[in-house]
């Protein structure tokens, strides 16, 4: 999504589906009240999840007008909009801890301040790369949000409850395409196999615990609120293995990328992506349309 498609103010969001607005309102009006302020630890946790969604939304938006068919433009754009919706809620919530708005956090942080994982920064590549990235990320996110609906933080709980239904669809979209490309033609199979080799190294970082744990346990400030990512790994592995097997593909035994996104250490791809996403808001502060 180019920066011009991005709302700068709440009022500018007229292209969002009506139901999303209604549900966003429901989240905003949930028992937490509009003004619940998260602790710094909870805000940082929400920021990491929000940044993942924001960066992936920006990436998927780039497919608009470039997907194999118009219908796929729309499907990827819908997924991007869902993710943007999650990002807005998570960043708005996190921002309250530092008296910042969602826009302050999205447009006026620099690369080292972003907390997104490396997987979502990886280039769209060909359609197979995008589908493999979607398969990995939506499978992880589905397991994560399925647990976060039990969070004791009412805002995290409400956001997860809304998001998990959408992520279930994102996963289904990726699974359907993985099956078709995996057993489609020799070329589609080969491209999927290449994409798996390129992207599987970034799986490990999704399940790194150190951002939320201390001495091997969930930080006390996050107790009952957050999920220890490594506890999601087994279900992620079995579900993805099942899909890949049906698609006649395998998860490659490969090296593991260094990670570090949650500490603000990013790959070479995030900088240019942020430059495009942020340029308009920075050159024309307060711009609205």
């Amino acid at each position, binding site marked *: 999504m180019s920066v011009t498609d991005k709302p700068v103010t709440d009022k500018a969001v007229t292209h969002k*589906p*009506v*139901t999303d607005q209604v549900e966003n309102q429901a989240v905003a009006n949930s028992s937490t009240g509009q003004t619940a302020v998260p602790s710094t630890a909870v805000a940082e946790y929400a920021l990491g999840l929000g940044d993942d969604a924001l960066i992936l939304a920006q990436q998927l938006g780039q497919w608009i007008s470039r997907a194999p*068919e*118009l*219908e796929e433009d*729309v*499907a990827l754009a*819908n997924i991007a909009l869902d993710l943007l919706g999650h990002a807005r809620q998570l960043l708005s919530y996190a921002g309250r801890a530092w008296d910042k708005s969602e826009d302050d956090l999205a447009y006026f942080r620099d690369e080292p301040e972003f907390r997104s994982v490396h997987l979502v920064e990886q280039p769209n590549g060909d359609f197979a790369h995008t589908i493999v990235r979607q398969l990995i990320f939506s499978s992880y996110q589905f397991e994560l949000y399925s647990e976060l609906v039990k969070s004791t933080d009412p805002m995290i709980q409400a956001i997860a409850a809304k998001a998990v239904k959408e992520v279930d669809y994102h996963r*289904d*979209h990726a699974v*359907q395409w993985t*099956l*078709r490309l995996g*057993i*489609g*033609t*020799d070329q589609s*199979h080969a491209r999927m196999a290449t994409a798996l080799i390129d992207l599987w190294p970034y799986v490990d970082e999704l399940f790194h615990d150190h951002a939320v744990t201390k001495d091997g346990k969930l930080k006390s400030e996050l107790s009952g609120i957050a999920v220890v990512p490594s506890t999601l790994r087994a279900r992620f592995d079995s579900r993805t293995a099942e899909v890949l097997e049906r698609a006649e593909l395998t998860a490659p035994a490969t090296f593991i990328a260094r990670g570090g996104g949650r500490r603000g250490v990013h790959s070479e791809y995030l900088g240019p992506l942020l430059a495009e996403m942020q340029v308009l808001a920075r050159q024309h502060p307060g711009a609205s349309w």
Partner: protein
Amino acid sequence: MAKAENSKFENRATEAAGHETWPLWEVFIRSARGLSHVHAGSLHAPDATMAVRNARDLYTRRMEGVSVWVVPSAEVTASDPDAKGAYFESAQGKEYRHASYYTKSEGVKHL
């Protein structure tokens, strides 16, 4: 394309001018229980399963439906648009088909 022949998915794509295009599907949506499915539009998809998913994205994003049907456009047999007259004007000029010449009984008020 060697694998495609053994594919578990029915691939309806056809070659057209060197570019493989997805076939067209007609989408029918039922907006509420008790109503019938109504034609919403058409879309491209490689197979029926993907057509239902695309229909969801294209036609039901605002909770319009409780049920979606997709039908291959090629399977729809339609009346000939040029023969519209013969098909649809049958009632005109055939007043004998309408019960409009009966005299109304005096005692009947709300006919």
